[in-house]
């Protein structure tokens, strides 16, 4: 099973399949899943079950539609006509489409939950009695995993399933965590340090570990994951609550507006006694069917129907990126983040330093230095050593020689004591290593160290790089060995590709990026400048991070960070968005409000984008929904009253066929627009990083202006079709 297959749905395409988590070009959109028509069908039973009023209670806007649908159904049964029956049918469809949106969004999570459930087998745990560190346990007993309590100590051996979440307190083992992360390569878990956390449901592949359980029964990581992806644990987020209040207020206003219309109409009808009754209007005012139709068209059904689907899909988009948010609140907070704390290593720079330049000293040529540097590094398997060989090949065209070609060479491996590595071949003795060590070696061999070397070395260090010096001893013209310094290799942190552009985007979005590093301030500044972050925190200790986050929050800013170590936990807890790496300790995972299963710190940037996209989608559909009302007013109101006041036909700007067709068209449009927007709700609206003013202009013209205009066209088209239904025109 490949790393991401676990996250796929049972059917349909996966949009993000296999994209590399890091280094993805940032010009693209934050994607999501596309809608598969088959999925609608699959979700239909769930959507039907949601028609239960007790389930509808959570969504007052749609509950009103359902109540209206019930009432029109009763009216249609009492006085059947093709008009009343069709209105009733389409009102039911409106409710159903709304439920369908939610069901489809939940359905995606269900598939993931099922996979996770398989991992959550009923296992037995080997609980140790009276275990203390360093001592043998008093005894062992077999208990069901479900009975484990916090603080219990269990032993797990190769081939066994770890019975619950905890920390390794003794031993080291390789663990297959594919059930959780989808990553099939085993990981190492050991006691002490930052890789001690194990997750229940994963399998120990080798060795034996003793694990102290840190979870409460039924609250394991897998349990929470299942709850999250299923949406069962979903609570309304702060913005969602606020939006719901606004939608409820709008609903009440329109309820008042339609209900109070009745006495006005009765009066107007009685003042025009010559006007015959119609399906829309009689002596008792507007008929019940039409009144409900008008109300449903005016209340914000579009956003009301899609609101929860948007929230679920937002979480789902994170899950697709192997990020688990512990609450919707955290996802929303990610959109609001003002300051990003990014660890230098692994996030901004590649993990290792690389050779960037060969700087000869004295009369040595660059080529000679490159040759010497390459030779001395051939047997150096460290990434730094490899990078020297690669740089020599790419820049100076030196063919990479394999150690085997130089069978008679004597390789000297790196030793911490000498801080040098090198090779003795054909009478030449080459050494490469820390500046001081190599200089001392050259002096020892009777050579001179030119003063220029010191300057070069200091210059590289000041610029944030690491200087390696290459020295050589070889027979001189007189046969006596001659030692000299050939030059310096400039190793530097390599900033990941595209990071500067990403940080520029962040800046345009108003987000400040802070690089956190243990380097000295000089080095930190050089890398910060090269990467294009706004600021840096040098020589940072965990408590510095915490203090920095507090200071930012004091200024009203929201802070996001990543972390893995136990000492990161306070900062992770303090941050508004704390993303813990799955490889990290359970303390870190407890403290953060998100866990990245890929343990990729760069993902923080994507998380922020997903958070923003979630909010934008809600805002866009709210605006669209409200803007729609303009056209619906112009479709229904003139149609309704035109018999009473023929002059109102001038407001019938769409020239709809008849009052019945106008009202039905508006209702049908209102229902269809929900279906049409389900993919948008699940996928999220297109998001490009940029300043707020540009986003606003774009979204306002698309969803605001578009929302005003689209229904005019849509209702007209529907009217052209339904006018052929008998009894409608």
């Amino acid at each position, binding site marked *: 099973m490949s790393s991401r297959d676990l996250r796929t749905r049972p059917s349909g395409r996966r949009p993000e399949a296999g994209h590399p988590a890091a280094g993805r070009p940032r010009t693209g959109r934050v994607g999501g899943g596309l809608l598969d028509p088959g999925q609608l069908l699959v979700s239909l039973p769930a959507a039907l079950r949601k028609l239960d009023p007790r389930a509808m209670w959570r969504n007052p806007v749609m509950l009103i539609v359902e109540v209206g649908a019930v009432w029109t159904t009763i009216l249609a049964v009492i006085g059947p006509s093709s008009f009343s029956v069709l209105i009733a049918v389409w009102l039911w469809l409106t409710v159903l489409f709304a439920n369908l949106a939610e069901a489809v969004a939940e359905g995606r999570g269900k598939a993931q939950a099922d996979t996770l459930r398989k991992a959550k087998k009923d296992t037995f745990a080997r609980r140790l009695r009276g275990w203390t560190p360093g001592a043998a346990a008093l005894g062992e007993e077999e208990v069901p995993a479900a009975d484990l309590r916090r603080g219990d100590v269990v032993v797990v051996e190769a081939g066994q399933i770890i019975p619950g979440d905890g920390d390794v307190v003794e031993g080291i083992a390789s663990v297959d965590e594919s059930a959780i992360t989808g990553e099939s390569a085993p990981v190492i878990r050991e006691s002490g340090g930052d890789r001690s956390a194990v997750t229940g449901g994963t399998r120990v592949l080798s060795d034996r570990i003793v694990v102290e359980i840190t979870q409460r029964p039924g609250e394991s990581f897998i349990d929470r994951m299942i709850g999250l992806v299923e949406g069962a644990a979903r609570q309304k987020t*702060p*913005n969602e*609550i*606020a*939006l719901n*209040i*606004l939608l409820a*207020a*709008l609903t009440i*206003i329109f309820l*008042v*507006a*339609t*209900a*109070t*219309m009745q*006495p*006005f*109409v*009765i*009066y*107007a009808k009685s*003042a025009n006694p010559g006007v015959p009754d119609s399906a829309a209007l009689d002596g008792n005012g507007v008929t019940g069917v039409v009144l409900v139709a008008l109300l449903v068209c005016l209340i914000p059904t579009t956003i009301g129907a899609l609101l929860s689907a948007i929230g679920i899909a937002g979480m789902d988009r994170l899950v697709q990126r192997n990020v688990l948010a512990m609450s919707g609140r955290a996802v929303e907070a990610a*959109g*609001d983040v*003002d300051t990003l704390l990014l660890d230098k290593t692994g996030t901004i720079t590649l993990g290792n330093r690389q050779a960037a330049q060969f700087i000869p000293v004295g009369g040595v040529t660059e080529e000679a230095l490159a040759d010497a540097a390459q030779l001395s590094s051939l047997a150096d398997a460290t990434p730094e050593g490899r990078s020297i060989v690669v740089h020599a090949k790419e820049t100076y065209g030196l063919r990479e020689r394999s150690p085997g070609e130089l069978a008679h060479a004597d390789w000297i491996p790196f030793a911490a004591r000498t801080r040098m590595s090198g090779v003795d071949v054909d009478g030449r003795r080459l050494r490469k290593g820390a500046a001081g060590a190599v200089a001392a070696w050259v002096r020892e061999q009777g050579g001179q160290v030119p003063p220029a070397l010191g300057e070069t070395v200091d210059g590289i260090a000041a610029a944030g790089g690491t200087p390696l010096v290459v020295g050589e001893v070889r027979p001189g013209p007189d046969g006596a060995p001659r030692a000299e310094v050939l030059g310096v290799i400039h190793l530097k942190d390599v900033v990941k590709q595209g990071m500067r552009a990403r940080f520029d985007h962040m*800046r345009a*979005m*108003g987000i*400040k990026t802070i690089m956190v590093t243990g380097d000295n301030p000089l080095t930190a500044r050089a890398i910060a400048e090269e990467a294009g972050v706004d600021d840096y925190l040098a020589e940072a200790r965990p408590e510095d991070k915490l203090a920095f986050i507090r200071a930012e929050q*004091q200024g*009203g*800013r929201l802070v996001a960070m990543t972390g893995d170590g136990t000492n990161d936990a306070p900062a992770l807890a303090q941050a508004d968005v704390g993303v813990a790496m799955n490889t990290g300790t359970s303390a870190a995972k407890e403290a953060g409000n998100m866990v990245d299963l890929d343990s990729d710190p760069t993902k923080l940037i994507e998380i922020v984008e997903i*958070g923003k*996209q979630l909010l*934008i989608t*809600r*805002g*866009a559909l709210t*605006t669209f929904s*409200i803007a729609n*009302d*303009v056209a619906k*007013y112009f479709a229904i*109101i*003139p149609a309704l*009253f035109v018999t*009473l*006041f023929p*002059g*109102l036909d*001038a*407001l019938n700007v769409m020239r709809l066929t008849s009052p019945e067709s106008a009202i039905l068209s508006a209702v049908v449009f209102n229902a269809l627009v929900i279906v049409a927007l389900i993919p948008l709700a699940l996928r999220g609206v297109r*998001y490009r990083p940029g300043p*707020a*003013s540009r986003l*606003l202009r774009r*979204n*306002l013209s698309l969803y*605001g202006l578009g929302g005003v205009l689209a229904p005019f066209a849509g209702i007209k088209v529907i009217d052209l079709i339904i006018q052929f239904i008998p009894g409608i025109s």
Partner: protein
Amino acid sequence: MGSTTAGIVFIGSLLLALAAVHVPLGDYMYRVYSSPRHSRVERALYKVMGVDPEGEQTWGVYARSVLAFSLVSVLVLYGLQRLQGVLPYSLGLDGVEDQVAWNTAVSFVTNTNWQAYSGESTMGYLTQMAGLAVQNFVSAAVGMSVAVALVRGFARTRTSELGNFWVDLTRGTLRILLPVAVVGAIVLVAGGVVQNFADPHTVTTIAGQRQAIPGGPVASQEVIKELGTNGGGFYNANSAHPFENPTAWTNWIEIFLLLLIASALPRTFGRIVGQKRQGYAIAAVMAVLAVIAVCATTAAQVVHHGTVPQAAGAAAEGTETRFGIVGSAMFAAATTLTSTGAVDSAHDSYTSLGGGILMVNMMLGEVAPGGVGSGLYGMLILAVIAVFVAGLMVGRTPEYLGKRIGAREIKFASLYFLVTPALVLVGTGVAMALPGPRASMLNGGPHGFSEVLYAFTSAAGNNGSAFAGLAAATWFYDVALGLAMLLGRFLPVVLVLGLAGSLARQAPVPASAGTLPTHRPLFVGMVVGVAVVLVALTFFPALALGPLAEGIR
């Protein structure tokens, strides 16, 4: 000068004059409400009231102070009217009838000034001056206090204190309304408005009948009637009466006065929050809505297809010839765009579309520029709603002026904009459903309906202008409109103060490139859009059965 040119000069000069005083008056009001010093008179007043002027109030205390002060005001005003017969300067008039006294007391305390009575034949001089005129000042000052408290909510951080209502009330009255009123009254007197305590003149008309012509302290009442966006006329004919508004010049001055404070308050707002451009943006929203409304009203009056208007060149019915069509239309638009409700022409006689636009002006919430204070807070609520709806589209929790608009804030704002439409529509609905209130309509058909709709719109919006035609001096209308006025004033006031309280508590969110800019034309357009789509369109069904049904042919 042709009438078109005269009209353009009239409106243009008004706009120029308002623009000219915008900054100095706005800055002056900013200093009034921010100054730490108290004058000697104010100190004396605070001592009498038993108020510590340095003590700040939470939103709850501020709101209770507003309500307590208003309750006492209603009782005093009610008492003055009922006891009029035994008090001096009554002009021999008896105590005011029960339900009219209640309606009038509520009407003047809520800054509505709906008049279910005829001024000259109901109220004596004492009631006019010690009762009605006093309320004209303090009800306006209450509105300004509430607006300033809301603005402080935006400006302040991590506090529960919103200022002191008694200080704001006193300062608004003594330092802003009173000086301008004194100058304005002198200007009006110079323009021919009467000001005396004489008994009515009795004259013999050409037809030989004897007629009593009442004088009175009119100019002093007139100036605060406009300045405080009150609108309650000394005479029944209000500003159409030649003693209240004798010439086109006084007409200009009265329109200027009724727009003056409300249009300068955005500047005060900009100063208090420390971002003048935010004040300009709010002023721009008001200006856009006002200009559209004025143009539409004028156009509806000038370009009409009725037989008589076409023959006369414009819809002249119900207007005074000394003001002309444009002068009247401008006054009508200004009085409904603010919460004034003074009239210099009969709105009932306007073309149906013209009358409809006057209603829409009020339905917008009287925010362009609105009543003194109430216009600003109404507009800021619209801005909050606009920020919330469209603000999510920039991918952040909506913020306005560095304050997050969360569940609590949106609750207050949504309830605020629920109040007026609900009062208008429910009130009109009940009236139309009952045979008695229906019988009060002068006209049948859509026009009669417009009369009722207008009355409730005017009352709930605290405007006070009447569409005429409706015989509103009945038990039902006195009580129902009184309730609409009371709820239409004080529910929003409490909600605004609640919003102010929750805003003031917040820590500020620093602005960044990711923050929704609320000073750009795009935002101005958004607020205009919210006002039109969310507020005005709510009334579309009602309008379709009233003015639109009547006006579109």
